[in-house]
């Protein structure tokens, strides 16, 4: 999601909560929708949905033990459904309407007004953040933009599941995710991507969601697995994955779908999308090779799951950078992500002793931080240049520090709020299945089904 203007300063704090934003005289003119841009955004939306189901579902489902495969698939599937409704009712409105610097307003409650420009079946483009200084004309219908953003809102909480696989109650998951989407995801998305958002207006660069999606989900995962405690038998039982082939299919679909995630964040079918796709591919390959060789050297064999994990780490790390960097920088980002995430998922985790089952923290949070900071190093001016900022935001120490603020903000807000929401959920229905249910496996215990 490219911010049309990168401004230094604080956003207007005009209280707009619950008020539909009128189209100010100062707003840019509503453009016609461009069929090419719209085509690519429709496609990107399909690709990003495919990342969660079946992509992430398989990636995670393949890494658990046989008795938990279906329950793990169910987590991604159910979150897709729950967040779709939450986003429709209020999430989109809170994230992407003008509102104030901290939260949107309720003018798109129940997607109210989404069809306002439709005449004889034809829709126009729309203005993002109407009435604000950063109001930006978009060349796609707002329905398409809402859908594209929905798929981001879906995958983010689904990523958290990696940390608490094999032991969380399904009822707890449903309640926790509903609250998390509204209380954690929507505000952070607003801060970073809405024209009025305070983090974006600080100058933090996050093209496709390094902070909003990955650091956010990763830290939430760490908190969750700490609160839940380790799996029964952790460290003694054999917890080898049931089917690494599923994990490889999942990682592959994540990779393919990520083209929609990153290149789609250009919100158009243009050179920026092309460059975002290229650096996504390159960084991912570099990270997979980085993890693979690191493992080959240190453990003697390059594992298949390692290569797949490295690819995911690379995808994560290039995400915030993808619209801003050139191929050379993307190789550095990729190798760094591959090697460091290998270390965090295999050594750091054991050193610190938390049981992040599928490394939601070790891959998504760590990879996200690497990417966010290196974006500040490698950002190439012409890619982020605009009329009002002809130099764009080229990499600099200053930019790295700004990126650091974005990272810290996310870590703190998401970490704290996740803890609070877990406590509320615990009070309501409890968080963890019984030891017997855990031993038996969540498939039978929670869903009454099993794989043969």
């Amino acid at each position, binding site marked *: 999601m490219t911010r049309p203007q990168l401004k230094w300063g604080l956003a207007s704090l005009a209280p707009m909560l619950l008020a539909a934003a009128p189209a100010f005289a100062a707003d840019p003119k509503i453009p016609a929708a461009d069929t090419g841009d719209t085509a690519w955004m429709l496609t990107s939306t399909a690709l990003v949905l495919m990342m969660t189901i079946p992509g992430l579902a398989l990636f995670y489902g393949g890494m658990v033990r046989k008795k938990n495969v279906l329950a793990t698939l169910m987590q991604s599937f159910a979150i897709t459904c729950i967040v779709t409704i939450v986003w429709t009712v209020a999430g989109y409105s809170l994230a992407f309407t003008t509102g104030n610097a901290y939260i949107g307003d309720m003018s798109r409650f129940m997607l109210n007004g989404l069809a306002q420009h439709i005449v004889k079946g034809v829709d126009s483009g729309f203005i993002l953040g109407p009435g604000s200084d950063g109001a930006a004309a978009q060349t796609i219908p707002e329905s398409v933009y809402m859908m594209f953003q929905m798929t981001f809102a879906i995958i983010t909480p689904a990523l958290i599941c990696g940390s608490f696989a094999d032991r969380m109650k399904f009822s707890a998951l449903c309640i926790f995710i509903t609250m998390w989407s509204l209380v954690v995801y929507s505000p952070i998305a607003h801060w970073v991507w809405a024209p009025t958002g305070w983090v974006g207006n600080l100058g933090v660069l996050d093209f496709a969601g390094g902070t909003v999606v990955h650091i956010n989900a990763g830290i939430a995962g760490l908190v969750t697995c700490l609160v839940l405690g380790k799996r029964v*038998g952790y460290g*003694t*039982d*054999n917890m080898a994955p049931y089917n690494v082939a599923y994990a490889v299919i999942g990682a592959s679909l994540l990779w393919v779908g990520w083209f929609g995630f990153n290149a789609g964040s250009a919100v158009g079918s243009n050179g920026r999308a092309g460059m975002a796709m290229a650096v996504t591919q390159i960084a991912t390959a570099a990270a997979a090779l980085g993890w693979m060789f690191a493992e080959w050297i240190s453990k003697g064999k390059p594992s298949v799951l390692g290569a797949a994990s490295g690819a995911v780490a690379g995808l994560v790390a290039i995400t915030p950078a993808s619209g801003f960097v050139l191929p050379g920088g993307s190789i550095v980002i990729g190798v760094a992500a591959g090697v460091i995430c290998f270390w965090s998922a295999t050594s750091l985790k054991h050193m610190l002793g938390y049981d992040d089952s599928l490394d939601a923290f070790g891959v998504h949070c760590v990879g996200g931080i690497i990417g966010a900071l290196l974006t500040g190093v490698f950002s190439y001016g012409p890619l982020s240049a605009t009329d009002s900022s002809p130099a764009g935001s080229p990499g600099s120490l200053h930019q790295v520090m700004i990126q650091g603020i974005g990272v810290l903000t996310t870590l703190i807000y998401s970490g704290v709020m996740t803890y609070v929401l877990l406590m509320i959920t615990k009070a309501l229905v409890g968080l963890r299945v019984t030891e017997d249910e855990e031993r*038996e496996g969540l498939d*039978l*215990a929670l869903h*009454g*089904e*099993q794989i043969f």
Partner: protein
Amino acid sequence: MKLIMAIIKPFKLDDVREALTPLGVQGLTVSEVKGFGRQKGQTEIYRGAEYHVNFLPKVKIEVVVPSDLADQVIEAIAKAAQTGKIGDGKIFVLDIERAVRIRTGEVDGEAL
């Protein structure tokens, strides 16, 4: 020689194996089986058709030992596999007439 055949809960396999090593048991053979017994299974639901899962996953251990070791082995398995809950399983003892190690052709005591 005796063949000790034990049906146990799957997650107890490693415990049992470890309990046998100090006794000098050097080999054993394991199969995945399904058990039907007093312990009742789960109900599975598929599109509204409910299937009662009568058969629960168990692990069968077969280990052949010299007759004088049999008692110790039975005891060790019984201890390691016990949870005290229904479905812990059974141990059966059969007589073995002969044993051959394929690699060397050694027989009986030597073969184990």
